[in-house]
């Protein structure tokens, strides 16, 4: 009995690597500390009422962002481990098997569990405030989306210590990801981690589409929407069409692995190339899903910090909508070398290049927003200014990759790695950082001090160029991606060594950010933010920081893109809006169901990962019961009485 238990444990837990034992210990200690702290300070009830069961979009947004920063840390540690392994030829730090796991989890985590939730966090915190709404269209669903994402991400991360990590790349091409070549449970973790959080992503997409379509403040016509809201809208359209493809593709892969189907296997008529087409039909739109909101953030910041209206509003909207449309017609540029013939390659090369046109137009519009403005160098603006040259160069190498016959030389090389990190870090990560700094006071009610933020900015940026510029060069020297090691005879080591230095500089940048936030939390009382610390332009700056739970005591009007700016101008001229009577505000009630239901999804996913049908069925039954429970709960909302609104407003606004 004991023997069997031991045998089971040695297969169940990942063993034999000091790094992993270290992680086990770290995870254990963290868990115990969290539980101890919560118990000691009697915070369990607070945690449950204020966070685990909340349906408030602002809190959900904050939880998304916290989770994504933790994931940025995990993905970043993966990145540093890889860079360490590649710093010198013939390094013996990570075995090939581990290296393969690390780049797979790095890529998957960065895109799906860092970029996506960071983006959803910003959607959640800002979109309702920007359009003058009290919450999103479906607050309950919103909470469910978050918990599905969170538990999906946890399931994926669990593979590090239990069962073993996936190692077939972040897109898991078959037949490598099939049972025939990846017999372990790692691939199942990949599939179920993504599936569970993917349902959440799709639901969020729908939720924000409806929110933007139906819940805009009176007077806010389509062409009066702030640019960030437009970017969310375009992104959600892409999510709506792209995510179902991912769900189906991974479901088919799972059927192959679990039920012996042959959709993508080598044998019995399976077709791996079908998977490659399908996954990129989601995968390419996915990169635009994460970058469009960053464009939205930059638009807001450029205009605010140049104290000037956004240039070419209509062009901006038009450009974004074209990009979302075109993003569905470029997927084959990821496999020009799969022998599809000249017709197909020429078509996809052209569609890819076309995207450069609206993107270029956006850059010009940002530049001309600054032209004849007054540019203030606060941290949000600095990240925006760093983005512009970075994205121009990254965009240029992207166009070079789209030249199909030239891509035969770039494909799968470090040139490609450098390109996509330049647009993902320079575009997406810089964009979300800019957004986080910009909206930080609105989220938390206090300002961060700029000094450490500037240190973080410079180390990140210098680190970025030192890390990734040499990779373009080493790509042209023939170094291919996903290499776990290389020899002295290659001539690649100097470039790799420098690249590693750059990666660690970015790591230092991250530490500066953590220090900046920690420092801010320590001093938050003295750093209290006003309602409008940046002299903003849109409606979120018209209400106190942090926003009260009902957001707007009186529903605002949205007659202009820069409604709050116009309002400030009117007030300066002594024109005040007519006094409006307060009315009781209709609010959704907290619910435990999203949290509980997601736990059941986690259980079901875990069961599927190990092929324990009883557990999967148990989990799914739990999910079903939660759905039924929700259908029969009628007590889901309440009203905030006028008195309470008055009291809150008075305490938040002082005398205004």
């Amino acid at each position, binding site marked *: 009995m004991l023997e069997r238990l031991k045998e089971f444990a040695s297969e169940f837990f990942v063993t034999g690597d000091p790094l992993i034992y270290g992680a086990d210990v770290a995870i254990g200690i963290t868990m115990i500390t969290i539980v101890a702290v919560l118990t000691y300070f009697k915070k369990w009830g607070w945690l449950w009422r204020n966070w685990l069961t909340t349906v408030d979009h602002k809190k959900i947004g904050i939880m998304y962002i916290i989770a994504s920063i933790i994931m940025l840390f995990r993905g970043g540690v993966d990145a540093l481990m890889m860079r360490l392994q590649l710093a010198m030829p013939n390094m013996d730090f990570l075995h090939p098997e581990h290296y393969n796991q690390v780049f797979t989890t790095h890529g998957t985590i960065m895109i799906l569990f860092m970029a996506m939730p960071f983006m959803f966090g910003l959607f959640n915190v800002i979109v309702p405030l920007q359009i003058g709404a009290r919450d999103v269209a479906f607050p309950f669903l919103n909470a469910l989306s978050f918990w599905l994402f969170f538990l999906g991400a946890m399931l994926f991360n669990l593979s590090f210590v239990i069962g073993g990590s996936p190692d077939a790349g972040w897109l898991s091409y078959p037949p490598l990801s099939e049972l025939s070549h990846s017999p372990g449970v790692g691939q199942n973790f990949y599939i179920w981690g993504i599936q569970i959080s993917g349902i959440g992503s799709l639901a969020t997409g729908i939720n924000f589409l409806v929110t933007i379509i139906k819940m805009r403040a009176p007077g806010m016509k389509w062409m009066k929407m702030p640019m960030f809201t437009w970017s969310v809208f375009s992104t959600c359209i892409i999510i709506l069409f792209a995510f179902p493809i991912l769900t189906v593709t991974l479901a088919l892969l799972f059927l192959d692995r679990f039920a012996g189907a042959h959709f993508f296997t080598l044998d019995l008529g399976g077709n791996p190339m079908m998977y490659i087409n399908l996954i990129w039909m989601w995968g390419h739109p996915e990169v635009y899903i994460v970058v469009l909101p960053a464009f939205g953030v930059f638009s807001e910041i450029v205009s605010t910090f140049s104290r000037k209206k956004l240039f070419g509003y209509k062009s901006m909207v038009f450009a974004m909508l074209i990009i979302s449309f075109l993003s569905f017609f470029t997927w084959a540029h990821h496999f020009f*070398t799969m022998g599809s013939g000249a017709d197909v390659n020429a078509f996809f090369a052209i569609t890819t290049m076309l995207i450069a046109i609206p993107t270029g137009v956006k850059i010009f519009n940002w530049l001309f927003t600054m032209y004849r403005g007054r540019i203030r160098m606060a941290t949000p603006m600095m990240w925006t200014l760093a983005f512009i040259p970075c994205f121009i160069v990254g965009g240029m190498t992207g166009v070079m990759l789209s030249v199909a016959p030239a891509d035969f030389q770039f494909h799968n090389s470090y040139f490609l790695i450098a390109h996509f990190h330049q647009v993902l870090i320079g575009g997406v990560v810089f964009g979300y950082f800019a957004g986080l700094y910009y909206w930080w006071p609105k989220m938390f009610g206090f300002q961060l001090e700029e000094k450490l933020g500037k240190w973080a900015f410079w180390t990140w940026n210098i680190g970025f160029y030192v890390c990734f510029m040499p990779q373009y060069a080493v790509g042209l020297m*023939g170094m291919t991606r996903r290499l776990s090691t290389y020899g002295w005879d290659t001539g690649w080591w100097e470039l790799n060594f420098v690249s590693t230095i750059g990666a660690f500089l970015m790591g230092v940048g991250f530490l500066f950010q953590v220090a900046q936030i920690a420092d801010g939390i320590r001093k938050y009382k003295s750093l209290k933010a006003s309602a409008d610390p940046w002299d903003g332009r849109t409606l979120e700056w018209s209400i106190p920081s942090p926003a009260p739970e009902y957001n707007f005591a009186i529903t605002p009007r949205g007659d202009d893109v820069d409604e709050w700016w116009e309002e400030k101008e009117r007030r300066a001229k002594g024109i005040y809006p007519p006094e409006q009577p307060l009315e009781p505000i209709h609010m959704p009630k907290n619910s435990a169901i999203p949290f509980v239901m997601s736990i059941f999804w986690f259980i079901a996913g875990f069961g599927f990962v190990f092929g324990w049908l009883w557990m999967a069925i148990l989990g799914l039954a739990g999910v079903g019961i939660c759905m039924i429970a929700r259908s029969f709960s009628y007590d889901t909302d309440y009203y905030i009485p006028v008195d309470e609104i008055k009291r809150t407003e008075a305490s938040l606004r002082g005398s205004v």
Partner: protein
Amino acid sequence: MNKKPRSLIRIIIPVVLTLVTIALIVWPMLAGGQYVVLDPKGPIGSSQRDLIVISTILCAVVIVPVLILSAVIVWRYRDKPDNKAAYEPNWAHSTKAEAIWWTVPIIIIGLLAIVTIRYTYDLEPSKPLASEKAPVTIQVSSLDWKWLFMYPEQGIATVNTLNIPADRPVKFELTADSPMNSFWIPQLGGQIYTMSGMAMTLYLQADHEGQYWGSGANFTGEHFAQMRFDVNATSEEDFDKWVNDVKQQSQPLTQETYNTLAEPGTSNVAYYSSFPEGLFQDIVTKYVIDGQGAHSKHGGSADEASGAKESTTQDVDKSAN
């Protein structure tokens, strides 16, 4: 008086940082290593290098001015109390200006598109190269984690090393007995995927004798990093001599040796004096049921692939005769 030194430091620090960054980036680029993609030794690689240069120039024509413009704008309109530059907070639209920056990218992308289309048809990998000499055929199979090269006309085979005659087209026929890989010899030309159930065609040529770097480019699992090979381009006589040496000095590749070879694992360089008839065709169709190719419909290369299969059988017949 007090202000001056500080503002000087504010200029010096960024300048020093920029210089250090540039130095860090440029130093290794000059040291060691060879820019194989930019130093082609064959017609395909040369055309691709030209195309890379053309597209870089076309892009640079736009982005260099834009980069300069960005720097100028940011500098000129920074928020300084004594900044005398114009400030027009409501100037947010100009049809003329916007027309310009819709048109400029359209023109550049238009030009690039024309160039790209021309080269895409010219450099279609399955298109034979213009040459008086008949191409030599080499059958390439990617295995877990090694490359098997079979020379149907010469009747020999090698693992992880490739010899070709210089100045004569080589017709590679490629497949996989493993997850999809990619066959890449940067100095001769771009890569192409190797896939089970399918015979891809790639024409390359080495104009000069020499040794070139070759590797697998598409990840195939644990020891993917070991999938590299040297390409030795020699004179026609040396090539023939090498073939003879291999024939005389090595063992044959039997079906059993192949089966062992195909098992996951790495391998040293190896030479075989012969290989089983039709082995390449067997590898291509290993998992295919009843001739219903898993990828029999595959864009433009479907006919190419089946054409390749026919010629393969012929070639094998020839060498058997």
